[in-house]
């Protein structure tokens, strides 16, 4: 069977002749990865019941939004950005600042103004703020590539963390912002887990839709061409700088969207959610799932969420070490992937 056939053609092949399924599965890492992760998810949800499943789905939705938008930059355009947590934080803080109604004394500035906007008004603003900052950052970063790009994006993550921590007038520093508004339409407040899951999934659907629209257009093809060979893409008449900047801004805006959702879901944010390490985790999700596929990012996010929950079940692992143990696993996975499978589980692009 031809390896290069698209998935649906293989599926119809299996429907016609079930034996195809056997030949397909032999040595097919992608298929096994898919099956394993989805099965794990199902088993988990069955074991832990509906509430757990709903929360898991919400968290998954946020991480999936993040990884899809990062994949647009890393997988499709080939810019390995480790700074996306900055845009995530920008989105989260914008929504938090605009919607929070709790005001309290700050050490220096006294009363902090509150805006009390509704969530759905703040969310687009969050995306816009992230996009605007991305535009400025992108203009400065566009000249760098490869390893230099990675390092300056590290820089962006650290700078944004510092801003969140130290710009107390707006972000209230290490105290964090409480009482971030839940989504609300009219008098319908989305404050149960199920309703939040709904919002998360709708936003995820929007992100998937936008990403798919870009990826499947001529624009997306040019992005891949730029990833492969910037100079040649330029010889064929594409102004590479503009394309890179555009996709960077779009990706940042979607990341900001995810940030807004995150802050409304937790209702409390502080700078510790936006440390550099989270950004590295994010990159490892994207690489684990697979570069340059939307499906891969979904899979990676799912695997990541499951990994955390799965580790809570390990009897020998104390609860407080779960986060760290997950990091160890992801780190080792990253090394293993780089040695044996640099495109990730279902990826279409090798670093």
């Amino acid at each position: 069977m031809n390896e290069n056939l698209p998935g649906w053609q293989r599926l119809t092949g299996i429907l016609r002749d079930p034996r195809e399924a056997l030949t397909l599965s032999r040595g097919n890492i992608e298929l096994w990865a898919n099956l394993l992760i989805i099965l794990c998810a199902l088993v988990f949800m069955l074991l832990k019941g509906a509430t757990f499943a709903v929360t898991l789905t919400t968290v998954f939705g946020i991480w999936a939004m993040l990884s899809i938008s990062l994949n647009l930059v890393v997988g499709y355009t080939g810019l390995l950005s480790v700074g996306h947590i900055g845009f995530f934080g920008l989105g989260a803080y914008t929504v938090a600042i605009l919607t929070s109604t709790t005001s309290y004394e700050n050490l220096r500035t006294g009363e902090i103004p509150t805006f009390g906007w509704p969530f759905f008004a703040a969310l687009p603003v969050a995306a816009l703020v992230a996009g605007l900052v991305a535009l400025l950052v992108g203009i400065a970063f566009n000249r760098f590539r490869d390893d230099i790009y990675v390092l300056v994006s590290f820089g962006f993550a650290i700078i944004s963390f510092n801003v969140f921590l130290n710009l107390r007038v707006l972000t209230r520093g290490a105290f964090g912002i409480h009482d971030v508004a839940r989504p609300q339409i009219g008098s319908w407040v989305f404050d149960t887990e199920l309703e939040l899951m709904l919002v998360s999934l709708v936003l995820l659907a929007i992100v998937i839709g936008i990403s798919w629209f870009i990826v499947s257009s001529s624009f997306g093809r040019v992005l891949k061409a730029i990833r492969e060979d910037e100079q040649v893409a330029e010889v064929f008449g594409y102004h590479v700088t503009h394309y890179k900047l555009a996709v960077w801004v779009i990706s940042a805006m979607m990341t900001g969207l995810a940030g807004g959702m995150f802050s409304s879901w937790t209702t409390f944010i502080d700078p510790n959610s936006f440390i550099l390490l989270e950004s590295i985790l994010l990159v490892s999700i994207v690489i684990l799932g697979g570069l340059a596929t939307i499906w891969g990012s979904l899979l990676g996010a799912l695997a990541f969420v499951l990994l955390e929950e799965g580790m809570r079940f390990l009897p020998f692992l104390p609860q407080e070490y779960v986060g760290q143990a997950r990091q160890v696993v992801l780190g080792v996975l990253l090394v293993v992937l780089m040695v044996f499978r640099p495109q990730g589980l279902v990826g279409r692009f090798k670093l």
Partner: protein
Amino acid sequence: MSNNASQNDYYILETLDISKHFGGVSAVDGLSISIPRRGVTSIVGPNGSGKSTLINLLSGTLPLDDGIVVIDGQRLRTIHAYETPDHSITRTFQEVRLFDQISVLDNILVVLTTRKFWSAVFERTSRQHRARAQEILEQVGMWEKKDSLAMDLSYGQRKLLEIGRAMALNVNIYLLDEPFAGLFPQMLERVKVLLKDLRDQGRTIIFVSHNMEIVREMADHLIVLDGGKLLLAGEVEDVLNQPEVISAYLGT
């Protein structure tokens, strides 16, 4: 001025005193050449004589240090790579540079689709694009391979695909850097046929080659470079029979 105009009409591409230095070494040194409209011009010369640098300069891949390039009567001091399709120029590379990790079909489609920034987002691959891509891929004999990644192709196929990709861009001037190097005989024939087709459509083909046999067969005009300077230019047989050429190749 009529004389001048007719000259401009005869030559599609001229360089006036162009130079390019790398560190202290001049790869191209005050070079002035004229390339006639239509037909095939070959650029030959020993290693390090500046052939590839010349192609890179003409296609904007390298910035000019000095001098002027006249393309179709338009005088240019700088050529930006992303403007070359507007100047009706495209090129291939000496070491084949495809978009490795996308499919063969996409490699052609990248070139076919719109170059306008905003409309690219809203443009899907249309039936005309696919038809045109199929036409080109069939011409280079790779339609069956359309779904495989460009990096999985053999060397000869990659070379052909790169020429196909250049052909997809409907321009007048083709700069081909060593299009024949390292090809099987039947591949070689195929490339020859492709180039002859292009020539018969009235395009200008400029290619660099080391293979003198093919130069004899394919080229109408010949430009011999040595040490970044013009050694000789003219009709192929005339030039090849000059003793300077033989001595440039076999050493002093």
